[in-house]
């Protein structure tokens, strides 16, 4: 039930049946209480081809950030496998993992919290160079200048501190840092959600330019489906720990199959009053259930207007519906 790569490209990242469960204290004070688990990511599989961008969308708490962090092995997985460039990374010992992690980098959501306020920008960008012993002295300095210029900053910025920069500039610093170790795969976790709209476009355009220039592969995690569709080749939609549908972004918009995808698409406002007047919304009732005790069968069935008895009995698998579109639904 894995998700095929876009185009004929070679697969760079293959995620197989990934699970990440977090323990939580059980309610009450009983010592006999059973340990409960937040099933943040529950059996997720996908592939990303070299040079491709896979978008991962979903609402808060659906597990998209956990997928990103577990794929980078910042979290140890509960079960499953991630094959990066031919190596199964969860089986690697620490020293070899360090070599691989150089190739897998991350950009974080909050440009204020993800930079050390006491380090200069030069040292922040230089840290991956030091850790991986890529350069020293003059070569290190030149590499830092080069990286800053790559992301549209200049060399004078190297001696300044993060608080002297705006949100958009800080996100550029974070990007320069992620590029420092010469990665092939970057996990972008909501890299633009904290930025103003005019600045978002600057950062997104830069991510696209860098991908073209350096052949980077992205996992782009965000809740803004319009932006994800814009930047990605394929889009995977997550709901409560599972991928419910994956397809080419334009295909997904034109022919959504899963009822959750349909509802999600219809909920997103379009900046055009003429279009908005004509649109009919599918308003989902209620809230996302708790990932501690997710509904049996299909996780979405409690809010699904098409739910049938079978949906509560058996979990639907991601099935290929042609043209690379995969859907996990019993009904549609």
């Amino acid at each position: 039930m894995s998700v095929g790569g876009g185009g004929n490209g070679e697969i760079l990242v293959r995620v197989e049946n990934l699970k990440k469960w977090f323990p939580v204290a059980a309610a009450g004070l009983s010592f006999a209480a059973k340990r409960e688990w937040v099933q943040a990511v529950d059996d997720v599989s996908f592939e990303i081809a070299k040079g491709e961008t896979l978008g991962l969308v979903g609402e808060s708490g659906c597990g998209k950030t956990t997928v990103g962090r577990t794929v980078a092995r910042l979290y140890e997985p509960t079960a499953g496998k991630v094959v990066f460039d031919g190596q199964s990374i969860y089986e690697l010992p620490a020293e070899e993992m360090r070599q691989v992690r150089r190739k897998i980098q991350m950009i974080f959501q909050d440009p204020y919290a993800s930079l050390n306020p006491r380090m200069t920008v030069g040292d922040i960008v230089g840290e991956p160079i030091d850790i991986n012993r890529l350069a020293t002295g003059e070569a290190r300095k030149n590499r830092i200048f080069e990286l800053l210029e790559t992301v549209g900053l200049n060399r004078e910025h190297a001696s300044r501190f993060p608080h002297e920069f705006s949100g958009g500039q800080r996100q550029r610093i974070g990007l320069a840092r992620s590029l420092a170790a010469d990665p092939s795969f970057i996990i972008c976790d909501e890299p633009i959600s904290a930025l103003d709209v005019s600045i978002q476009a600057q950062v997104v355009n830069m991510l696209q330019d860098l991908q073209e220039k350096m052949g980077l592969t992205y996992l782009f995690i965000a809740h803004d489906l319009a932006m994800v569709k814009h930047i990605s080749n394929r889009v995977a939609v997550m709901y409560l720990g599972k991928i419910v549908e994956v397809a080419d972004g334009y295909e997904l918009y034109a022919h959504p199959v899963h009822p959750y995808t349909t509802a999600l698409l219809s909920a997103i406002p379009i900046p055009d009053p003429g279009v908005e007047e004509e649109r009919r919304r599918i308003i989902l009732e209620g809230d996302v259930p708790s990932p501690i005790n997710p509904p049996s069968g299909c996780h979405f069935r409690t809010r699904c207007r098409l739910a049938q008895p079978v949906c509560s009995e058996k979990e639907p698998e991601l099935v290929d519906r042609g043209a690379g579109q995969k859907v996990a639904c019993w009904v549609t």
Partner: protein
Amino acid sequence: MENLLRVRDLKTSFFTYAGEVRAVDGVSFEVAVGEAVAIVGESGCGKSVTAMSLLRLIPEPGKVLAGSVELGGRDLLRLKEREMRHVRGNDISMVFQDPMTSLNPVLTIGTQLAEAIRQHQKVEKDKARARAIETLEMVKIPSPDKRLAQYPHQLSGGMRQRVMMAMALSCHPRLVIADEPTTSLDVTIQAQIIELLKEIKKATGMSIILITHNLGVVAGLATRVIVMYAGKIVEYGPVKEIYQIPQHPYTWGLLKSVPRLDAAEKRRLVPIYGQPPDLLKPPAGCRFHPRCDHAMKVCREKEAPFVPVNGNGEHRVACWLQHPAAPAVAGFKKGVPA
């Protein structure tokens, strides 16, 4: 349409150690009865400060320096604090952005709702409770009588925002100011809340000032749009005109820098380069000129007058490109809708 609120030349500054920050610098607009007006702009453009100024809730070291805020013939800026308290909640109420921090975590929903009602209207406790249940029903919270005994942490984000709305609506205000009411919510929940706002507006005939940076939300709810940049209104007009024939390069930029979900093909986004200005020392002339692709010499020197775009004067813009002597700009339709 009859005007409910008339704001004239509002100026609000914050007196910081670094100097005077002119957060709102000469803002004028009207809100008609039963109308939804959206104020859009990026962080720090003064949209929230404008709203807080209307309610006279500007915290130290800020101060409303000049202007007038007329509601039903009275200038709110000249009322005594005691009278102003009566206006808040009864005539104008507010829904804040973050339902997480704007509810008191140690009081039940019922206590907080009843407090709001009893603060503004003289009613007995049990009457207030009945009213609280009524307003919770209005915002479509299931089993409202049970919810009254619950605490904010027991509710989801969307439910909390409904409680905030219930509180704002509890005294049947004529104007509700919604400051980024859906920004911290997920899109499916955002759709629920926007739909609810529309229904309540239709049912009660109240007016809404919607403050947001989300141009999609505006398109679905507002009848008129005010675009703010660096403390000033740069353009305002009927919602369709703002989207179809935006006249200010900033409005234009805002619309082009976001991808549309219904776009049929990939088109590179057009960002607005640079940063919004530091309001301690705003640029001379038009405040947008350092980021404007079409800036001329006059833009750097003199502020552009606010001119009508078409005959009826409902759509106005402050931009020198409107001047008869200004050069034509490719892809830019000046004036009357084609």
